């Protein structure tokens, strides 16, 4: 029998870049095929070609053995190809049924929406694949994991046979990930095929039946998850030896640098985002804040760095009250901040790299005399930092916007680490970065810790928190529900805490 999907010699050129170079890929019916690669390896381009958003310069796509021209997403849907995007495309104030039928509405009496019929079909799909979705629930009331299932239903409603899932686990708790893998298994049992795009090696080994690794626009290898190891896959992805394990020396911690007492912060809509939390970070230790996205991490970090006013509580930096200080005062006291969204907060994308490297020090000597900027010093500093932090750029005059995510993040790291600091607040420091950049930033971060800097690491990547932290605080609905020693904490235990389930032991220990 012909494979359900076959890509033959797909080549896509962009000016100056060969994004896909004669890529061959075969997906059999009923398999989970993992597509693994760093950012910029060409995964997204390939999937956009498959989904009809780009047209290949060469090569052909075969669906069920027939050459199929996919010129637009409509063609892709017709050919039975559907995509679950990383960012969900759902209308929060609509019900599940309304979201699913959007664009393919059932009607009766020549134009009136037939919600009942659509709801029935949604229910059927939900039952068939064990999705456990109420067709009449509103999206806004559902947790992220269920919203993702609605996205899957949308594809099944349109009779997709090949499901492309783009980084589906990025927004899920560990428990939800397990649920998702179960659903994926059900889907393939029922004869669907899945292309699973990810950069998380553990998940690939756990779920996929076949792995294809892409690097630099080329297929560099296919392996069987039964025999492959994480290190092999990582080396294949990056093209050199990568160490996945972070070597962390045991270190004696020093005095308290950051002390947070009963801090309460509201989100922009007035809800309580950070609810009377307490913790402290000592010199030479990494305190990791684990938690599913949207549990108050953003507001906590913004409040600590002076960007969002606290309504109650105190924040002490080396004993000095900074609860109501502004960002500049906090920076000047020796705080570095790697913001959660580097493009929104951390960089001025239109400005050259040299300016971005002095974004919060430009007014100080030697970069300026108070009035006039000293461009010469700024450029020299820029060139020095570009070299020492290995920022890949044609020149320091290049606008930050034209660099890759990893290099943009290196600008921020270079800027924040190159001045004397005693506290580092790093929020999602490796979000969206490739394995090579992650390794680099992790090492830099631990180097700061070893220098005696207090590090507050906020991340939704549980693996990252576990690898880097000395202690782990779990944030759930604005409260720290537990602080664990990283050496003894298990992934399962943390996963349950992240979902808000406090076991008996923790309750007692509090």
């Amino acid at each position, binding site marked *: 029998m012909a494979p359900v999907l076959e890509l033959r010699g797909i080549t896509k*050129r*962009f*000016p*100056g*870049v*060969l*994004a896909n*170079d004669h890529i061959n890929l075969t997906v059999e019916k009923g398999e989970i095929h993992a597509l693994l690669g760093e950012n*910029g390896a*060409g995964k997204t381009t390939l999937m956009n070609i498959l989904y009809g958003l780009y047209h290949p310069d060469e090569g052909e796509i075969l669906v069920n053995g027939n050459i199929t021209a996919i010129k637009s997403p409509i063609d892709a849907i017709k050919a039975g190809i559907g995509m679950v995007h990383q960012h969900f495309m759902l209308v929060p104030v609509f019900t599940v049924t309304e979201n699913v039928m959007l664009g393919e509405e059932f009607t009766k009496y020549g134009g009136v929406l037939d919600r009942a019929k659509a709801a029935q079909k949604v229910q059927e799909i939900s039952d068939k694949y064990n999705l456990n979705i109420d067709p009449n629930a509103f999206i806004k009331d559902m947790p992220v994991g269920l919203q993702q299932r609605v996205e899957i239903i949308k594809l099944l409603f349109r009779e997709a046979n090949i499901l492309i899932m783009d980084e589906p686990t990025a927004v899920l708790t560990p428990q939800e990930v397990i649920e998702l893998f179960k659903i994926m298994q059900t889907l393939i049992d029922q004869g669907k095929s899945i292309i699973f795009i990810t950069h998380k090696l553990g998940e690939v080994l756990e779920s996929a039946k076949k792995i294809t690794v892409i690097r*630099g*626009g*080329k297929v560099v290898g296919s392996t069987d998850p039964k025999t492959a190891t994480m290190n092999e896959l990582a080396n294949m992805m990056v093209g050199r030896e990568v160490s996945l394990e972070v070597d962390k020396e045991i270190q004696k911690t020093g005095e308290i640098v950051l002390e947070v007492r009963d801090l309460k912060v509201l989100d922009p809509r007035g809800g309580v985002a950070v609810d009377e939390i307490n913790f402290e970070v000592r010199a030479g230790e990494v305190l990791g804040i684990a938690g599913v996205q949207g549990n108050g991490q953003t507001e906590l970090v913004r409040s600590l*760095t002076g*960007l969002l006013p606290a309504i109650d509580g105190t924040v002490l930096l080396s004993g000095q009250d900074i609860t109501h200080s*502004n*960002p*500049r*005062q906090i*920076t000047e006291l020796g705080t570095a*901040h790697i*913001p959660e969204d580097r493009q*929104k*907060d*951390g*960089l*001025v*994308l*239109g*400005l050259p790299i040299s*300016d971005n490297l002095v*974004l*919060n020090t*430009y*007014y100080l000597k030697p970069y*300026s005399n*108070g*009035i*006039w*900027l000293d*461009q010469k010093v700024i450029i020299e500093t820029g060139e020095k930092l570009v070299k020492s932090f290995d920022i890949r750029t044609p020149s320091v005059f290049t*606008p930050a*916007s*034209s660099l890759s995510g990893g290099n943009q993040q290196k600008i921020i790291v270079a800027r924040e680490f190159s001045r004397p600091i005693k506290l580092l607040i790093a929020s999602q420091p490796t979000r969206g970065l490739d394995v090579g950049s992650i390794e680099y930033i992790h090492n830099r971060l631990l180097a700061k810790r070893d220098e005696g800097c207090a590090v507050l690491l906020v991340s939704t990547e549980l693996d990252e928190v576990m690898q880097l932290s000395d202690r782990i605080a779990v944030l759930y609905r604005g409260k720290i529900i537990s602080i664990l020693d990283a050496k003894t904490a298990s992934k399962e235990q943390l996963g349950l805490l992240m979902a808000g389930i406090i076991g008996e032991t923790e309750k007692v220990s509090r």
Partner: protein
Amino acid sequence: MSPEKPQELKKNGLAIFWEEFSRSNFTVIFLAIFTGIFLGGVLVAATTPEVYDAFKVSFFSGIGKAFTTAINTYGALITGAIGNPQKIQAAFASGDALLIRRAINPFFESLVQTTPYIFAGLSVALGFRVGLFNIGAEGQIYIGALTGVWAGYAIPGLPPIIHIPVAMLCGALGGALWGFVPGLLKAKTGAHEVITTIMMNYIAFRLSDWLLKGPMADPNEVTPKTPWILPSAELPQLFEAPIRFHIGFFIALLVAFLVYLLLFKTTWGMELRMVGSNTNAAQYAGINVTSRTVIAMVLAGGLAGLAGANEVLGINHRLIPAFSSGYGFDSIALALLGKSHPLGVVLSALLFGFLRNGARSMQLTVGVPTDIVSILQALILAFIAAPAIIRTIYRLKTPNQNEDIVSLRSWKG
């Protein structure tokens, strides 16, 4: 992305040049002006009855007539803007000073028209750099003219070396006040500066009407006018009549240079540009966005105020109603055309000034209404604002970076 660049090796020099050329903003600007002029020509031909008569004779004579009509119109526009070369030559040959001045007057008159455009264009451009849409330049010009003219006639006994700067400064302060109000409203209440500056325009227009009829009216005149400014406040003219060219043009160039220094060489400028291109990052970097917004509006208002003061101190020497005739609104287009860069503003102010001056004599000599210049400006601006049109027409490559220097945070809320 993969580092391989196989197809670039095959390219010859010309193709690489075309690619570079295609991607730069200047190409789009140049082609936008060119396309605007071309379509303007089509419009002139299409509104001339003789062209239709010629089409009745034959298709080719119609095309020929359309072509000559457009050429004649633009010919008149150009000679109106820079002078007639034959006349200039004849005047220099005759050696008569008055004849020479008359012959070269169109060129200098264009520079006279350019001067307020430079000031007002800088005002709007500075706003754009900080992410603010200053629609209020026209009102700020009026207030600048009012305060400037007041300082010109009401402060006696000063030598020109002091009186001129004082009067100009008064103009700037008046405009600055008119910018300060919307700036403060935006910073304190979030009121959108597009709305508030438009409102401030109307207040300025009516305020000047009232002042010209009442407190500032010249008692010896029947119609509403202010008294003449004192000779000590007049911006010196560099030639005798009829050339009105005065030192205001050089002041404008100097101010453009100062704005350039401010924006690109000082810490203040860095802060303003940061606020303009990414408010969040500016906050992150510890900048007080609110105060920078107010400062930017004050500076923008001050620059527009200088445009007003320049007009009354350099040209009119008194203030009459409706004197500005749209410099402030044109300058929005002009700042966009100049990509909000002081040098770009000076260049596009020259273009606008020459067009405006040329249009008058075009109307006199070939009977095409001056409105054609407004249409030209509108076409050029439309093409600048929607570069996709130009890129499609000329099959240009899409740019490799963000081409919008102007990011209007105010539009996003």
